[in-house]
């Protein structure tokens, strides 16, 4: 088993375990912390996939940005003593079944679907390539996303602002 495979299985197990903590943890802050580390594990997987740019972006945006916001909101809305409260709603069984079945189906599709080439195709260097794509083929979606972000920012400000009386 090569180093790469070892790393892959380790990171995979790591991310999955932490993701499970995220959805099952009794205490929400722990869930958030687990989320952070699971993101880091995924970043490691991205590096295994020669996507170092995205790995960095992953850490920067998800860990440095989104989860910080999440933690922030948690600190603003909930207390530390998260013991004893019911964290799952009453439809957990059904949804669990649904999730598992979907998982299995997707897994089947993945295993029997696509045949990857024997050796990895040559890949251009990450950052410049992504930049070129964003500026040429995907310029329009890029603009759309930026506008979306702008709208999101405005909306967030508007929603979070205390309505002045």
């Amino acid at each position: 088993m090569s180093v790469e495979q070892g790393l892959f299985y380790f990171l995979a197990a790591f991310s999955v375990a932490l993701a499970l903590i995220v959805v099952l943890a009794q205490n929400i802050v722990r869930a958030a912390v687990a989320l952070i580390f699971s993101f880091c594990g995924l970043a490691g997987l991205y590096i295994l996939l020669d996507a170092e740019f995205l790995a960095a972006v992953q850490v920067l945006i998800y860990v440095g940005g989104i989860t910080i916001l999440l933690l922030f909101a948690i600190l603003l809305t909930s207390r530390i003593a998260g013991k004893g409260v019911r964290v799952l709603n009453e439809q957990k069984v059904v949804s669990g079944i649904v999730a598992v079945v979907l998982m299995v189906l997707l897994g089947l599709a993945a295993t029997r679907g696509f045949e990857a080439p024997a050796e990895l195709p040559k890949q251009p260097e990450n950052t410049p390539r992504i930049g070129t794509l964003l500026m040429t083929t995907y310029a329009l979606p890029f603009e759309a996303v930026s506008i979306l972000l702008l709208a999101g920012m405005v909306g967030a400000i508007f929603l979070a602002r205390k309505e002045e009386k």
Partner: protein
Amino acid sequence: MVEMVWLVPVLPLVGVVINGLFGHKTGHGAHKVAIAATGLSAAVALVIFVQVVVGASLDRDIYTWVAAGEFAAPIGFLVDPLSSVMMLVVTVVGFLIHVYSAGYMHDDPGYPRFFTYMNLFMVSMLVLVLANNYLLMFLGWEGVGLCSYLLIGYWYEKKSASDAGKKAFVVNRIGDAGVLLAMFLIWRTFGSLKFTEVFDGIGGAKAVLMRPSVLGLTLVTVICLLLFVGATGKSAQLPLYVWLPDAMEGPTPVSALIHAATMVTAGVYMVARSAPLFNLAPTALLVVAVVGAVTAFFAATIACVQTDIKRVVAYSTISQLGYMFLGCGVGAYASAIFHLGTHAFFKALLFLGCGSVIHALSGEQDMRRMGQLKEKLPRTSRTFLWASLANAGIIPLAGFWSKDEILAATFAGHHYLLWALGSAGALMTAFYMFRLYYTVFEGKNNVDHHAAHHLHESPPVMTVPLLILGGCTLVVGWLFGFPPDHGLYHRFVGSVFEEAGTAEHAISLVLTVVLAVVATLIALAGIGLAKAWYKTGDNPAPARFAEQFRGLYTTVLNKYWVDEFYIAIFVTFGKKVCRALWGVDAGVVDGAVNGAGWLTVAISRVSALFDFRFVDGLVNRIADVIQGGSQSLRKIQTGVIQNYLLAMSVAVLLVTVIYMAMGGGR
């Protein structure tokens, strides 16, 4: 200069941006921006048109809009005689109507909003016309639909207006679904949505196209019929015409621009644009022709009895659109587009005239409260007269040439029945137009007094466009249409459809003349009848006529109860079901109670005992079933998001299961 065609839609877009974002700044100067934008784009369009006449053309992709896998849809423009004619008509008429609106809307609070919508409409319509692939055309198609919705409901504080807007939107959705499906099929068949590639690919894909797919119809027929469904929605043909009369709730310039001149003709344009496909599908062509002719006749009958001045013109529009589709259906695409152009002018003129009248009478729309306005509104009445003559198809005005060509082509195509329908429609067209004209501008003066005493001719900003449009109405017909089938226009646009492999029915000169004379006589007859009945305004004949054929009259007056029919079928149905359930429930439960009561009374009657117990039990059971059912039904809406989410994911799951069961993902 042809390369600059992108300017034509972009200029109004600039207007949209300025008025839309800085409307509070432009305020009552908004019309300056809007008019400048449309005017410039009209100028560019004119230049390009001239160049196209000289022989230039363009089919260029500017930008790859959608690229997903092997699916790619460019943002590209196609400039050929057909699209250039459309472009010219849209821009010129649009420009004039913008000018007119500056006067008509001058004291409206939402001034910038109005002009933003109008410009946005111009943008969408030009995109629709100039697009070089179906997807981009569909973008414009939806855009004009949106603008029509916004503008019909422009006075949104008026419930009738907002309802009419919604109605138009919903009805159009039906047609749009057709267009979408057609696009899917086209994509699957040709692997492209670009007009050129699709039409060039026809030869290769003929085998596939001719293969029977649904109900024994060939694939191409299905595609064409689906496209035509969209056309009926957008161009207000049977059975989807119901939204157009209600659309008159919008401001009159809107009715003129969108619901007479440009948007409603989009369907015709699409059919003509897809001529190569339609030519392969005679069945579809026949359907188009029949629907067109029937609509032409049907709408004309309704127009004969309407009393709302704008609705008369609206039904007349529907009828004229019917003629256009009739033209397409019999393969006379060029004539259809010609009629589209002329109709754009004189129908816009009619609407603007109506607007001017309504404006003068401070909002009065019922033509029974008008009359003898000829002296008060000289310019309006004169141009209105021209337009009426044109619409009635009197030589040498615009309407005559185009409509007559269509009818002639129908005759030459041996569709004698359709020709008869069309001619009957023409008769009524002449009749209702002059019924309108005489009751409004001559006849008896029924204007109520407080409307009468500030009765005034509209300001020049409104009448000048009227005069210009009137001038066009007078000249375009014989200028481009003479001699029939060989005039400037036909030599220009005809080429497109010859490439499309349209079967032109040779038509002898004699026949042409004969038909022309017949048509003129028919029109004159209609005018004569209208004159006899409405010139003086106190002729009892119409009333007597109505008395004689009361049933027919009321039917037509109520527009054949189509709206009621639709409402009964599609709207009330749901309510009906619920009420039925409730009724059963109540009835059964009560029955149960009473049954129980009778049971106690008739305890001695052994003979009846079994009977009642049986009834009782049965009844109770039914009641329980129904109650349980309704209870569980209303439980569905819990208000908890995650339940909905769960339902969604279950659905996704099912789709995945089915997909993989059908061997997908392998």
